[in-house]
């Protein structure tokens, strides 16, 4: 029954007869009209736009991406030194100081007699290279004029410093930067002030006198580590 039905849906005689019957073709004028219409429609502004729209979109995307990447690379980078110096512990500071001293000893430079600075911030920010450039290293310590000039420069703070000179001296420069960071984080006595126990203690006392108790405490902790046998009755007050 199903085969019979299937045959009835697809009768070969009917199909063949119909195929023989249906020989008409679409008139040429109709074909031309349709094809002309299709060609006309294909030339619409929309189609013309499609031809360049996609490449233009790609080009714009790539250009924008490059611009963003370039812009990101031009952004100011965070100071590498600041990141590394922030991680220094007082122990590291001591090591750096020793390295600094060794460097100075090797170069045969004369040290300026230690005088405790009473302006901790400005003294702490002075780098050894500045001392060199100011003539303190090789200059006669008895000549006060130059030393005073350097002190004036120190008092000018960060703005009066020359940043380009900082990375030139290697380990010494690193120690100076460490000093700077240390000053920012609370260690405000200078290298020269720390050269002798007395001058360092004087610096600590001055800090206490100025009301900078926290800084004085941290300085005193460091002082006790370096000079464990030094006794001063007033220092820990």
């Amino acid at each position, binding site marked *: 029954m199903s085969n019979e*039905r*299937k045959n*009835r*849906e*697809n*009768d*070969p*005689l*009917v*199909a*063949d*007869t*119909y*195929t*023989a*019957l*249906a020989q*008409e*073709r*679409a*008139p040429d004028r*109709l*074909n031309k*009209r*349709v*094809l002309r*219409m*299709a*060609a006309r*429609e*294909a030339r619409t502004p*929309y*189609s*013309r736009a*499609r*031809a360049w729209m996609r490449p233009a979109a790609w080009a714009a995307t790539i250009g924008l991406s490059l611009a963003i990447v370039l812009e990101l690379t031009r952004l100011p980078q965070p100071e590498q030194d600041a990141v590394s110096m922030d991680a220094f512990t007082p122990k590291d500071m001591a090591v750096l100081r020793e390295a600094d001293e060794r460097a100075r000893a090797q170069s045969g430079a004369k040290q300026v007699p230690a005088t405790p600075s009473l302006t901790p911030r400005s003294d702490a920010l002075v780098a050894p290279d500045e001392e060199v450039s100011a003539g303190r290293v090789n200059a006669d310590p008895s000549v006060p004029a130059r030393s005073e000039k350097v002190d004036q420069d120190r008092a000018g703070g960060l703005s009066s410093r020359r940043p380009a000179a900082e990375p030139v001296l290697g380990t010494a420069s690193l120690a100076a930067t460490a000093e700077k960071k240390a000053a920012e984080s609370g260690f405000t006595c200078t290298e020269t002030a720390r050269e002798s126990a007395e001058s360092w203690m004087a610096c600590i006392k001055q800090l206490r006198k100025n009301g900078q108790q926290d800084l004085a405490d941290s300085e005193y902790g460091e002082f006790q580590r370096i000079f464990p046998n030094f006794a001063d009755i007033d220092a820990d007050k």
Partner: protein
Amino acid sequence: MAASAESVTRSATALCSGTTLPYAPAMGHTPEDSALMLRYKDGDVAAFETLYRRHNDPLYRYLLRLCRHRDTAEDIFQDVWGKIVKSRASYRPTAKFTTFLYRVAHNCFIDHVRRNKRHAGNTELDAELHSHPGEQPDTLTERSLAKERLSRALLDLPDEQRDAFLLREEAGLSLDEIAAVTGSNRETAKSRLRYAVNKLRVAIDEQTERP
């Protein structure tokens, strides 16, 4: 599966008889049809011309026999291709292009019938299709008579049955595709096609037996 088997059988029959199926170019070329349409969507007019040449004659015959009026068929034919052209921007190859094309044609025909109530009874094509210029009735061969009887019977079929038969013969659509084009279910399409084929077969047989 059954539909593809029928197609293969039909193609084999056509090859043996030396005739060409009117829908043969569309069969098995659906991806190319879709690709051509997509190329036309990107502005390739030559692709559209290839596509058009594949389908213009079967579509024309489909509409000619569905409308039974040449001018109306030509109007709808143009309308159909106009809609295909305009729909290229939104064209998505989700189905066979042939199904898409005949769905548009079917809808255009339905719109035309709704707009023009005089369609019923307009059988201008009758005389045109049945005339055999330069050929006397007594010289007509048996095959010519069969064709004439088939043509008359085809024009006498209800629109739905004729539609189903023409979709099968001209477009080579399967039952599912006929159902999709006519907006009916598979069983309805199958029933319409069976009735149409039975009536046409009876018409051919009757005329053959009469002499």
